[in-house]
């Protein structure tokens, strides 16, 4: 039994791999059923769009499951990568929306409107490649990965870890959002990049387009889950857990710990970036409010609530937190921040392994009990309904 608990965290091999894998596949199946069938069938376009938006945050939470939950690297700056991915996408869309005809009233037609307002007369050099869709799609993961690589190498090779790493990533989130807000002419400042219209001529703003984007996003999300599962199932997955628990031992087993950390940090950044790009496509804008410290910490809360070791749990956590955020901020706007804080404290103090952990410790047993009681109830009902020799038969049923 204790071994079952050991293995619960990852996709462990030798002992309980098969049963564990089956259970995880079931959990993914249930989630897929919800995302692909239940939500699109039951929700109106507005609410479905919101779920689609939440699911883009789930990419960040998935990255955090890999890098924080398994690898023990807490990054409080994942919004940076989400934002960069989103901005790369938004830059392409903005250029497409800023053709000379629709921007004819500007003093310099053909450049994004916010540049014109900021007295820019030509497109900055770094914007030019984003006229190409291929380049932009490449830049979505590449730019955040490059930044993550630089941060990772600089930090992990010097053995900066734990709280120090978390603080530095938080500082980077603050720096980037200040930078974006400060360079209005290049980035659209605090408003971000807005009024995005078409992708290669395809209007993104229709309900139909949003619905398609929802499914594209969902497919990518399950692709990300599959990728995460694969990584955790390899030796690298076990290495991450080993590193988290006994970094020194891993080093003295001949591994370059820093490289493994850089890899998982870059992978988490890439996932976040895909989420950011899908956010831009679905919601139609990108702004620094997704880059800074607060959104970055919120994203950690999603992963923590879902259970930081569980990929599927991270998606549920993201949905749950965002749903309650929307619900409470609609009903009790003042209370929301307090509730969010309480939730985080609750996760840390009461159920440190999040929803997934609660399910492991209570949910499964409870479900089994419910199923059993339901079964007994149904069979009892069945007996009462069956005609024929009633009461006496059951009374004189002695034990053999």
């Amino acid at each position, binding site marked *: 039994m*204790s071994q079952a608990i050991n293995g619960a*965290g990852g996709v462990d091999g030798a002992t309980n791999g098969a049963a564990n894998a089956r259970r995880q596949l079931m959990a993914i199946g249930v989630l897929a059923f919800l995302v692909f069938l239940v939500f699109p069938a039951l929700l109106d376009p507005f609410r479905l769009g919101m779920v689609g938006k939440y699911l883009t945050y789930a990419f960040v939470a998935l990255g955090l499951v890999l890098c924080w939950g398994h690898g023990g690297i807490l990054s409080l700056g994942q919004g940076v990568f989400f934002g960069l991915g989103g901005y790369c996408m938004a830059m392409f869309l903005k250029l497409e929306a800023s053709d000379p005809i629709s921007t004819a009233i500007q003093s310099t037609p053909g450049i994004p409107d916010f540049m014109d307002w900021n007295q820019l007369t030509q497109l900055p050099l770094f914007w030019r490649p984003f006229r190409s869709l291929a380049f932009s799609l490449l830049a979505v993961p590449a730019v955040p990965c490059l930044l993550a690589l630089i941060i990772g190498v600089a930090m992990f090779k010097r053995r900066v870890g734990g709280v120090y790493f978390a603080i530095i990533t938080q500082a980077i989130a603050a720096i980037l959002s200040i930078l974006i807000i400060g360079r209005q002419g290049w980035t659209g400042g605090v408003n971000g990049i807005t009024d995005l219209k078409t992708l290669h001529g395809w209007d993104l703003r229709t309900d139909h387009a949003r619905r398609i984007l929802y499914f594209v996003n969902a497919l990518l999300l399950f692709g990300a889950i599959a990728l995460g599962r694969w990584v955790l199932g390899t*030796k690298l997955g*076990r290495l991450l857990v080993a590193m988290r*628990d006994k970094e020194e*031992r891993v080093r*003295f087993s*001949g591994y370059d710990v820093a490289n493994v950390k850089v890899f998982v940090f870059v992978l988490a950044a890439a996932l976040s970036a895909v989420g950011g790009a899908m956010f831009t496509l679905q919601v139609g804008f990108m702004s620094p409010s997704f880059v800074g410290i607060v959104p970055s910490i919120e994203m950690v809360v999603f992963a923590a609530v879902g259970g930081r070791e569980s990929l599927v749990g991270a998606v549920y956590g993201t949905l749950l937190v965002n749903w309650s955020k929307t619900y409470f901020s609609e009903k009790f706007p003042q209370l929301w921040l307090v509730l969010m804080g309480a939730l985080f404290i609750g996760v840390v103090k009461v159920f440190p392994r999040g929803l997934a952990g609660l399910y492991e410790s209570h949910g499964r047993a409870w479900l089994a009990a419910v199923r059993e009681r339901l079964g007994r109830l149904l069979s009892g009902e069945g007996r009462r309904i069956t005609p024929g020799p009633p009461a006496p038969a059951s009374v004189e049923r002695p034990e053999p």
Partner: protein
Amino acid sequence: MTTLAITGAAGLAAAVETAHPARKPAEDYLLTVEGLTVSFDGFKVIDDLSLAVEPRELRAVIGPNGAGKTTLLDLISGRTRATSGTILFKGRDITRLREHEIVRAGIGRKFQTPSIYETLTVFENLEMSYPRGRSVFGSLGFRRTPEVIAKVEEAATAIYLADHLRRGAESLSHGQKQWLEIGMLLIQEPELLMLDEPVAGMTSAERRRTAELLTGLSEDRALIVIEHDMEFVKNIAHRVTVLHQGKWLAEGSMDFVQADPKVIEVYLGH
């Protein structure tokens, strides 16, 4: 097996009685430490230390608390950087290499408290130390081949854990955890194994089996063992180095160093 070890020990002891510094040419030694010094804030924890270990030698390092024994292992394994001096392993300067590079060069190191992966099984613990798939992409492509399984089982047999492969490592007894860590080193196939107090906290039966294990291991690799248990050292060591306040004090067979008045004064006399 034991007779072989004893003659080996006697032969070595005869050759070295006062072997400081190394009298043979450096190529004959597996590990040569020369003029090693490390100081923390001006305090010299290891002070101008030289010693040499031959292939297939089982060397014990003893000394009172604070003599610098663990620091010596830290220096050789790259955990601490030397202030001055050199460490040669198989003729190669490893003084400035990083930990994992030193491991890959062929030096394994066991920590004082058992350092194993508690959340993994015994099998997975051993497999993790298998010397392949150590790079990021190597570990992504690593497969549990029959060869790997055979190696893991071989190591598990050597450390008396062949029947416990499927167990979670956290449920092992303290002594078994110590063995598991030794097994994790064995699977790396090191030419030099360094053990920091391997029998600390073991029962006397476990100590006996550990002595047998280490004696067997020294047939095809060198070992450096730090230990406080003098009886244990006497049983296994070919040669003993005594450290005191970071300095080399004496070296030779156990009987030889035990008879040395300097050693008696600083250590055994207490």
